Every structure is written in C-alpha cells, then in structure tokens.
C-alpha cells in the first residue's frame, strides 16, 4: 500500500455524474484498506454549473479537499473544466479528459468565447490522456455511461486491480445497470 496520500479530482458540469464516479473511487479505496476522504458539491452549483469532487486516499487522510498544485490525477468530463482546474495538478500529474464540449451560458449568450485547442494547450504542460467517451458510450447503446468509460481510462493510472474495480462498480451502481457499467469501465480500461 502506498503511504503517500494520493489526490484525485473529478471535474465536470453539474449533471454529468461526478458523484457516482467519486463514490466508486471512494469504494475502491476503502475496499483495499486505505483511509479515504471525499468531498462533493450538492445544491445549486449542481444545476449545470462547474462541479468538482475530491478524493484523497492514503494511510491517514486529514483534509477532505485537494488544493492547488496537489492533484495526482485530474479526471475531466468536459474540456473547459479540464482547463479550469489544470493548475490543481502536481508537476507530474495526469489529466484524463473526455473530449466533450458543453458551452457555459456565458458562451451561449456571446459574453465569452469557448477557448480553442484546449487539449493541445494542456498537452504542452501535462501528461494528457483523451477519450471521446460520449461517442464510445453511444456505441455501447447508452450515452449515460460515458463517465464510467472515462473512469476506466483514469483507472490505468491507479494501482487497483481490474477485479477490485468491477467488484466496487457492482456494489455502487443501480442493480439494473451493473452489466452496462462494467462493460463501459472495461472499454475505458482496456481500450
């Protein structure tokens, strides 16, 4: 077991399923014997706003949040959100980004512009792993599991076994969706 606390962030747009993803992460860390703390966003910010969830695990975890410059893995469900939180990464931190663009209201109304070439920009500074998870999810026949595909890609950068992941997914997601979510996860993990 790693002694050093590992810091994971999940960022996205309210409604994209960051809570479910962080709960799977929380589950796997305790299943494997770590101390863990998770911090979530509920309430108004969830309504299509920028949301961030922190997961910290290690031998003993004190604070529940990941601070700037400390994240080992940044899991981004949307490109602009990856850019917004990239400065939370450690120097050797990894970004897993879903190539989805969701325009914030400031862009819809013309008050701001959606930044161009986000991923190319991030690649200059960080190790970036990209996936068009929505496209992959639609191929599986269920657009809602895109977040689990992204989690599968991120799992490549964490030390937990495939079996442990599948076990915790089974425990965490609604019973009817277990098979679909497992399939989605494996698609992300194994490509």
């Amino acid at each position, binding site marked *: 077991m790693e002694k050093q606390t590992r810091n994971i962030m999940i960022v996205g747009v309210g409604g994209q399923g960051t809570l479910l993803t962080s709960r799977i992460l929380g589950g796997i860390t305790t299943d494997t014997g770590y101390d863990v703390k998770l911090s979530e966003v509920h309430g*108004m910010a969830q*309504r299509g706003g920028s949301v961030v969830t922190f997961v910290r695990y290690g031998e003993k975890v004190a604070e529940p949040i990941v601070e700037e410059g400390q994240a080992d893995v940044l899991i981004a469900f949307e490109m602009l959100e990856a850019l917004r939180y990239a400065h939370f990464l450690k120097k050797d931190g990894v970004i897993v980004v879903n190539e989805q663009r969701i325009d914030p209201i400031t862009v*819809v109304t013309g008050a701001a512009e959606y930044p161009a070439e986000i991923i190319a920009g991030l690649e200059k*500074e960080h190790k970036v792993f990209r996936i068009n998870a929505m496209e992959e999810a639609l191929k599986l026949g269920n657009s809602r599991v895109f977040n689990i595909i992204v989690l599968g890609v991120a799992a490549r950068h964490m030390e937990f076994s495939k079996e442990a992941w599948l076990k915790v997914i089974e425990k965490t997601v609604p019973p009817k969706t277990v098979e679909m979510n497992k399939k989605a996860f494996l698609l992300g993990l194994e490509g």
Partner: protein
Amino acid sequence: MSEMKIMLGNEAIARGAFEAGVKVSAAYPGTPSTEISENIVNYPEIYAEWSPNEKVAMEVAIGASISGVRAMASMKHVGVNVAADPLYTVAYSGVNGGLVLVAADDPGMYSSQNEQDSRCVARAAMVPVLEPSDSQEAKDFMKYAFELSEKYDTPVILRTTTRLSHSQGPVTLEERCEPVDITYERNIGKFVMMPGNAKQRHLFVEQRLKDMAEDSYHMPINRVEINDTKIGFITSGIAYQYVKEACPNASVLKLGLVHPLPRKLIEEFAAQVETLYIFEELEPVYEEQIKAWGISCIGKEIFTVQGEYSANMLRKAVLKEEVSLSAAAQVPARPPILCPGCPHRSVYSVLNKLKIHAAGDIGCYTLGAVAPLSVVDTTICMGASISTLHGMEKAKGKDYIKNWVAVIGDSTFMHTGINSLMNMVYNQGTGTVIILDNSTTGMTGHQDHAATGKTLMGAEVPIMDIPLLCKAMGIKNVVEINAFDVVGLEKLIKEEVAKDEVSVIITKSPCVLIKGLKFEHKCRPVEGKCVKCGMCLKPGCSALTKNPDGTISIDETLCNGCGLCMDFCKFEAIERVEA
C-alpha cells in the same frame, strides 16, 4: 467486529441520531443540511418529516422532547433564523427528552444567500454548540449532544458546515441504544414561558452555562494534542483537519464544545505554547472570548472571516512557506443555470419579453436574475418575494407595480409565502403573484412538501390545493396555466398586472429532474431552414449551441423536448420528434 462504512457527514449525523435512540426528526430541506433527513428516513425506528418551514420543524421537535423522547430538528444556517423564535425560548424551558438542533452553515456560500455563523445565534440564545470535524465525529457528537442535552436540561446545537456535511469518510457503526422514554409531568414553571416563570428560568440558563463551562474541562470532546510547542492552535470543526494537514507537528487544542468554552483548558494550553493561533472558519466566536480573557493569540489578523479555510492558507500565513503554484487559466465562467426543459425558463422568457420585473425568492428560479433571462430583481429570503412586492406598492403606489410581479416556488410558498400573500390581501394590495409550481422542492434535490401529496416517509396524503387556498384568502383572480403555454401566459400576465386587485397565477409543470419523469420528445433543427437569427438562443437553454456558421445544434442528450426554442423560432427551423 464492528462494521465500518464510508459516510457523508450528513449521513453520519443521521446515523448518530439513530444510534442515540432519536424518536422524532423534523426538518425543512436546505443545502447543506438536506441529506440528514434523507438518511434518517432510512431508519424506520425514527419518525421523520419535512415540515413546511424551520420554525415548525423546531416546534415539532420541542413537542416531542417535552413528551419525553429524544428529538431533533435539522436545517441550514438561514433556517435557524426562521426557527429562532422557538429556539431562544426553548433555551429557557430546557428539555425533557434530549433535544438537538443541527445547524448547517455554508462558509463560501456554495448554495446560500449569506454566510452567517450559527454559533453567533447559539451564543445569543445561550445554547451550547458542538462542532465535529469529520464523519466519525459527526456521528459520535450527535450521541454526545443528546447526553449533554439531558444532563444539563438544555437544547444543544450540533453545528456542521458544507465541507463536513458533504465530505465522506469512514465511520464505525454501533448499535442503537434503547430509546429514552421519560414520563411527562405537568410543569408550568418549566414549560409555560410567561414572564414570572421565564424570569426564574433565565437565572437557571445563566447558571447552566457556567456549570457546563466548568465541566467542559473534563469533556472528552475537547482534546489537547501536545507536540512541538513552538506553535499551538486552538481550532474546531473542519478547520482542525487543515491544521493536521499543514502542521502535523504543531500542538493543538481541538474544541468539540465551542460554546461555552473550557477556560481553564484554554489557559493551560496557551501557557504551554510559544505562539498561539486561533483557527476557526467564519466569525471569531471563541477568538474574541479568548482575547477578552487577556490571552495573547493571533487569529483574524491573518485569517479571513470569509469563505472556507485550507491547508495552503496555513502553509503561507503560519509556516511562511513559498507555495509555488501555477496560475489558473483564464477561462469563461460556468455559473449554475436552469436545466434544459425547466419550466421556469419558459415563464421567465415571457416576463423578459414583457419587460416585467420580478421580486424573487429562494429556489432554482433565483437563477432568473442573470442574463439572458434577467427577470428577477430582488432575492432576500424564503417567502420575501410577495411581501417585498407589497412593500414596493405601499411605497410607490399601485401603478408603480404594473410592470412587476412576485415569483415564488411551490415549496417556498408553503414555507413562508402563504402568510405574505395573506398580508397582501388583508392590507389591500394589488400585486400579481406567480407561483412557479413544479411540484417539488427543486434546488435541494426534490423533496416533498404539503402540496405534493407525499410525505418524507412515503405516505400518500391529500395534496394541499394551492388555488383553493388562495381563493380562501379572498383572492378572486386565481388562474392555473401550463408553464409552457407561452402565448396564453403572455396574455394572462398582461391582464392580471393591469388589475387593481391581487392576482395569483399558478404556472404548473413538473421539474424535469423529478425521478421517473419520461420525456417523449426531443427538438432538432430542420435541415436548411435556419436563417441564423439567433432567436432560439434567447432563453439561454444549454442544450442549444451556436455553430461556427451561425446555425444551431441541439444536444440530444440534454434536450427534454420542451419546445421553448421552437416557440422562439419564427421560421419553423426547429421540429419536435419522438425521443
């Protein structure tokens, strides 16, 4: 072996209530407190309800306590203001069965209209306050709160914050203790707070606080951790975790009871450390007291009274570490917005077209204040929309409010809107009130209320008839309309605001996020018809995106087929198809 479970702070508070043998729980939903009741309802041993507002919830809990069982009320910080009246007086009466108020503060205002510190209310009400610092303590302190409540004959406040309530951590589960059932005996000196009795109880309250302060020296929830004595912290709640993260070798006095304070313990600790820091989020509640005792310490001189704290804050301000951070990218903000298919957007798009101002209220629909809808002009507190509109009329005359309405959600109307509307009728107002009835308490995550026909525990009950209620107040103009009937709504609003009478328009359409709702349609652009006028983008639906060539796309995973964009398109360039 006892079972361990990862729990949200609020889930742990609920577990603590269960293990403490609580029999009655009452609450009104409000971020960050809502999940407490949503978890309590999973324990069938506890009667749990959504009350119409926090005052009622507090009184329900008080009644249960007087009858002799353990009872609780939970609410967000601003809800404590609503419950202040019973709280301040039950502080005098004291309890029979243990009584705990869970007050959830929101440092950083993730989902609130102010950043008040409930501990200030507790001090003014002379009620003790416990502050847990993680999920395990949230559970343990709940149980301890009930013990203190019964031992000292006092209501106890358990104060949580957003970060604690909405963080998860491991919790060791224990059995439910045998619920107390204390015999009720008539005691008007204690439970009838008329002046003669209250004068006696005030003396009792003052003595109670002194006794608790004295005893708190030995309370296990106040903990001294002596390490390196160069730096010492007095801290509590989630702030303790930041201290442990940034300064694991510092000495710490961790307060579990933050009011009243263990003076002797604090003095002893202060004498042991070279530099003493007071690290508490929001107001300098114990810092001021500690300074008043002449103890030298540093607090709000270097730590803010606003927002959340962090470990980096300590690294910079106390350890003087150079925390080298890369700059945040300059990116467009992504504020929360109304969901695609939200009925509020439809109503607001009509108000925007008619250039009507809205006195607003608390709910998702507060988001109508910002562009592009820009309809809501005021938001103060729960229920204030109707009364502020009435005040405007009384100040400036009935013609002044001909281009104003009040907008209020169904749950907020049940909370404190009803009495405001009664006042408008009674005092000869002429305002137009739009009740945005989406059949739920939306923003907090879909809780039931008296007008939804279901209780927190899942019982089917008669639906409070809002139109009939309004008519019973003597209002003649009460009209229900589908929120998406933009043509009918436009006509109706014009007619009603023109009248010199109170009018109530009830726009009905369920919140799109209500579980189990199925949407049969989706909207999509019709090939070759778009003239790039941008009208469909005006209501600000996030399912719509402008393409580089000026035409639009509709995200089919987001669209619920409400058709509002079609109403705005004059060229039939958007069609509705089966989902």
